């Protein structure tokens, strides 16, 4: 994980762009998904039999790009071009540019209903693949999240798993209350886990959930792994200057 964390930091520093803490918040989940769960082939990213993953909170793209590059979806050298004019890697992921990206997200509240559509489309075609999506807790303010929660349970989408990156970044605006109870009351199977414990993440993602969608509330720390960034809202969308970069890198070493 240190290697991926370092890459995220370096690429945000060199590009002067990116949401570092949001990316670190979901890094363990992404790693488990791409290492243990998703049936995907980096050499055939459009394989018709693949599982689907959507990063609904698209601003954490740096984290997704690092994992996709590590898994061989594209050349790692491209990470250095993050957010440059002709780069395929933007501040939010683009499905028409980045191998392995299934939906172009950025505006919050779109990825989950798109995932519902993919899951429903697979069901209509009697296909067996699964669909995974990560949403943020701030994103859960959006009405479309709860519209989608209704749709997913009504249509019995047991091929859909929604992971909520619950790093409490949205607390300063709205109190979401008990998310597990909320998803449960919408008809989902639901559980709360430590979003930085990879064994716990893997076990949760492998949970059977017949006839209902699964919501995993992942308790995470925004900026996880670098103390100076952890739960520090000043760093939400900020890239470090030279001095800060050196300090943050020291923490990682």
């Amino acid at each position: 994980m240190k290697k991926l964390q370092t890459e995220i930091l370096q690429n945000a520093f060199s590009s002067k762009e990116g949401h570092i803490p949001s990316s670190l918040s979901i890094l363990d989940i992404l790693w488990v998904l791409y290492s243990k769960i998703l049936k995907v082939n980096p050499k055939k990213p459009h394989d018709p039999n693949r599982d689907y993953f959507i990063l609904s909170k698209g601003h954490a793209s740096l984290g997704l790009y690092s994992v996709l590059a590590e898994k061989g979806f594209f050349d790692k050298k491209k990470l250095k071009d993050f957010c440059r004019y002709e780069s395929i890697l933007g501040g939010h992921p683009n499905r028409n540019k980045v191998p392995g990206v299934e939906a172009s997200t950025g505006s919050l509240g779109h990825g989950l209903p798109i995932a519902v559509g993919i899951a429903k489309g697979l069901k209509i075609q009697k296909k067996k693949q699964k669909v995974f999506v990560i949403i943020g807790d701030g994103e859960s303010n959006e009405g479309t999240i709860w519209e989608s929660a209704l749709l997913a349970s009504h249509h019995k989408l047991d091929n859909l798993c929604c992971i909520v990156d619950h790093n409490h970044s949205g607390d300063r605006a709205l109190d979401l209350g008990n998310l597990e109870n909320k998803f449960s009351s919408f008809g989902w199977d639901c559980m709360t886990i430590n979003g930085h414990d990879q064994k716990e993440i893997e076990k949760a993602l492998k949970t059977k959930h017949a006839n209902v969608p699964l919501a995993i509330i992942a308790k995470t720390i925004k900026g996880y792994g670098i103390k100076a960034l952890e739960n520090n809202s000043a760093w939400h969308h900020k890239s470090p200057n030279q001095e800060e970069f050196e300090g943050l890198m020291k923490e990682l070493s």
Partner: protein
Amino acid sequence: MRKQFVTTVEEILKKDERAVLLLGDIGVFGFRNAFKNYPDRVYNIGILEQSTISMASGLSITGLIPIVHTIAPFLTERCFEQIKDDFGYQKLGGNLVSVGASYDYAGLGCTHHCPADVPILMNIPDVQIIVPGTSEDFDTLFKESYSNGKLKYFRLSERENQTKVPVKFGKANVIKKGKSGTVIAVGPLLDKVINATKDIDVTVIYLTTLRPFDTETVQKNITGGKVFICEPYYSGAITEEIIKASKDPLKIEFLGVPKEFLTNYGTKEEHDEHLGFTEKNILTRIKKLIHE
């Protein structure tokens, strides 16, 4: 036109297993046979239009062809960002079919009026926009384009032209040729334009596909350097295309829905009268333009 929509979509559901119909809790009775015959591909999704559009884009990602149907303001104005991001930006194909555009639901007030549908969708690159003037137009244009990989917006109207013209997707029809100017009639306004211009020497062009715009036909048929555009939504959606189509400077006049809230109720015919969508007013306005 709504009955034709049901007939056309039922035919497509029968022959194309990729077609999936999503209703926003309208048209459920009309599609009762489709619900029975294709339970895996016909859904009353509910009254959650934004998620319906995003969900439709997800269906499209898996290779299906979504057809989404609800009332114009909820399908377009409410879902503008979903159409922009989830279909436009993602380059996904699908079909949006509205009813109740402009003031077709005159008595229901401004929340249910939608003269902005066509102009706002023009702001999303690559969205194709179709305004049929008859049931036959809809049937032809929908069948020609529903699976073309682009997002299309079909605007069903409560009124139909009596004039039947063989239309083709992406092509304008020249109804008659004259020398004093060109009148462009969009969709259901053709009858009024034909009647208004029967005794004057103008070219009449009938447009049902607004995008892709048939530049070639319009270019060849601009006469007298004067164009009168008759469009059933907020004026201006195709003006740029017409200006670009002309090799020479043009004098252009418009009859469209004015940008004001239509706070009266009544019937669409009463609104027509108030706004000047009458044969008499169309003729007066065209004469004024060509004699200036």
